[in-house]
């Protein structure tokens, strides 16, 4: 008999997915026991709105990890592209998402493509290359465009309104809770990425390149093109996430999200993506981000100061990593695979 999971996803669930699901359920029960109001539709709605930018960024990170790389420049790409699109919007006086969204995505794509080209031709660890581009993008933008912040009153009207757009809303005595427009966007991003990764040749090439770049290139996978796709697509997602982030927090801050890169990578890694490439699932990524988001936002409900967030998140990350890699280590020992590092 097929498990319900299998019936929906057409594959077996990974151990990491199972363990994360249990962890999240356990944590939700714990929080609910402290504050029954946690177990509500509002919580879900809030999570959607707050977690949307992180989720989109995480999908991009997943793609990079699957391809066997690591990118730390994406938050800067996100913010830079979004900020740039807003500046341009003012220059042209077109206060509409229909202008900003494509422009931001386009800028993100371009910055991502630059990453890809440098990675390809410098033949250096992706971490080092993106560390360099991160500094260059950030510095260049600040020098060229300035670092003025635009709080809600000064930020583009359409962007501010977009952040508050709901597809449905429920009115409770305590207030109105809306299901943000971000939900279909995030869902679309996840679906599109899933489709690209599993049902197109370029997506399969990403897996192939991640699991063995040498073999992939020998059978004719165009490594440069695959890299351009990976980093370009990740950049596009970053451009999208940047605008959504501004819309969500209702504040345009050109130095926001600095230091966020390692957190997002951590969330994706918790979800079972391997640094060695070729492995990682969208569901796992989703669960990792969900857990991250829960720790960020619900410690208050447990009566714990928010100072515990890093502690818990770090501990879960360690446990996750230990689980994934000790398993791998055992398998390697069994199969007599000797690995570096």
């Amino acid at each position, binding site marked *: 008999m097929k498990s319900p999971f299998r019936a929906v996803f057409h594959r077996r669930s990974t151990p990491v997915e199972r363990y994360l699901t249990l962890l999240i359920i356990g944590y939700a029960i714990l929080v609910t026991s402290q504050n029954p109001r946690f177990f509500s539709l509002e919580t879900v709605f809030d999570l959607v709105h707050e977690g949307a930018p992180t989720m989109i960024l995480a999908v991009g990170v997943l793609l990079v990890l699957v391809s066997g790389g690591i990118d730390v420049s994406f938050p800067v790409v996100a913010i830079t592209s979004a900020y740039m699109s807003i500046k341009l919007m003012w220059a042209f006086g077109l206060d509409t998402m229909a202008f900003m969204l494509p422009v931001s995505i386009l800028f993100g794509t371009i910055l991502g493509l630059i990453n890809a080209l440098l990675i390809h031709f410098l033949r250096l660890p992706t971490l*080092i*290359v993106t560390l360099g581009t991160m*500094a260059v993008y950030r510095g260049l933008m600040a020098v060229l465009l300035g670092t003025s912040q635009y709080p809600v009153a000064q930020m583009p009207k359409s962007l501010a309104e977009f952040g508050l757009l709901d597809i449905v809303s429920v009115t409770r005595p305590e207030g109105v809770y809306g299901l943000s427009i971000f939900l279909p966007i995030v869902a679309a991003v996840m679906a599109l990425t899933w489709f690209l990764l599993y049902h197109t040749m370029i997506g399969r090439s990403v897996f192939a390149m991640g699991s063995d770049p040498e073999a992939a290139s020998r059978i004719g996978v165009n490594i440069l093109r695959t890299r351009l796709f990976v980093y370009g697509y990740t950049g596009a997602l970053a451009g999208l996430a940047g605008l959504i982030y501004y819309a969500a927090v209702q504040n345009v801050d050109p130095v926001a999200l600095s230091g966020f890169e390692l957190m997002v990578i951590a969330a994706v890694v918790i979800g079972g993506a391997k640094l060695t490439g070729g492995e990682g699932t969208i569901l796992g990524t989703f669960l990792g981000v969900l857990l991250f988001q829960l720790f960020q936002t619900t410690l208050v409900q447990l009566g714990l100061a928010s100072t515990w967030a890093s502690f818990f998140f770090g501990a879960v990350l360690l446990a996750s990593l230990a689980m994934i890699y000790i398993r791998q280590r055992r398998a390697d020992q069994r199969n007599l695979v000797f690995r570096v590092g």
Partner: protein
Amino acid sequence: MQAILDRFKGHGHVSVLAGANIVVLVLLAIGLGSSFFSMNNMQSMMTQVAEFGLLAVAMSLAMLTGGIDLSIVATAVLAGIVGAEFLTGKVVDLATTPAPVVMAMAVAAMLITGLLCGLFNGLLIAKASIPPILATLATSIFYTGVGTVMTGGASVPVKVKEFFKLGTVTVANIPMVFLITVIAFVVVGMMLRWTRTGRRIYLYGENAIALRFSGARHERLVILTYAIVGLICALAAMIMVSRTASARVGYGEAYLLQAILVVVLAGFDPFGGRGRVSGLALSLILLQLLSSAFTIMRFGPYMKVFIWGAMLLAVMLVTRIMAGFMERRERAHVAPPGSGGSPAVVEAVSA
């Protein structure tokens, strides 16, 4: 010819850095004049380079093994916090305990904390086979978490005045903290060059599998290396605490990426096995010269960020091009057919 090329491969980067230093010094002498070379400014630069230099050398050790340590700053901060707990009188009564005793306890506490953090990293990497970048990413979040929980995010003030003398005291006009860093560099440099452990670190970085097949305790080596990294971070913590008379989560976060930058700039191979402490020292000096000059020239902070990033990319680009050039040189150099002057007697016959 081949030997010269080989030598250049080993030392080339160091000579390029030395050249860059000289050029920058000359430019600064012309541009900023004697004020830049005043005793005051020299001391200031030495003081500044001290704590960051230690973090950089810690990072370089991790990179020599082909790994990376993203937790250096978190480790230093945690060690600093633990030490500061002593110096603030939380653990021992300052009124009844003589200051030197408190200071000794604090320093010991820092070193032990650093060592434990490093050991834990090493265990995760060696015994759980977690890639260094992920293991130390996780522990950096975790150590920061521990520090935050311990202090509630607050600054822990140092109440033992003698301790922060360390940060300002000079010996023959040279800041004490700088001397500590120089000693650390010399010790690490000698360890890498003259000791079995140092040799093995290079071998491990070059080819961990071959080292394992050579019968070396490769896992113990990794643990040892990261423990040393943790210990050096604890030294940095000591300097940090003495210079700021306090310890706090979030201090020096920017050092992490800077440390990676300076180590790569110094010619350390991110894949491991290559790099020299002398190169690292030159690279640090270069960065400090520029950094101080930028402050004097009143460059905004983002301009600096941009220049650092551009420098990193440029150095990598140049290295890449040089490597390509070398490859072509090698190919042009045609080796004699066969395996060379083998003394074996082979009756070669033509087909």
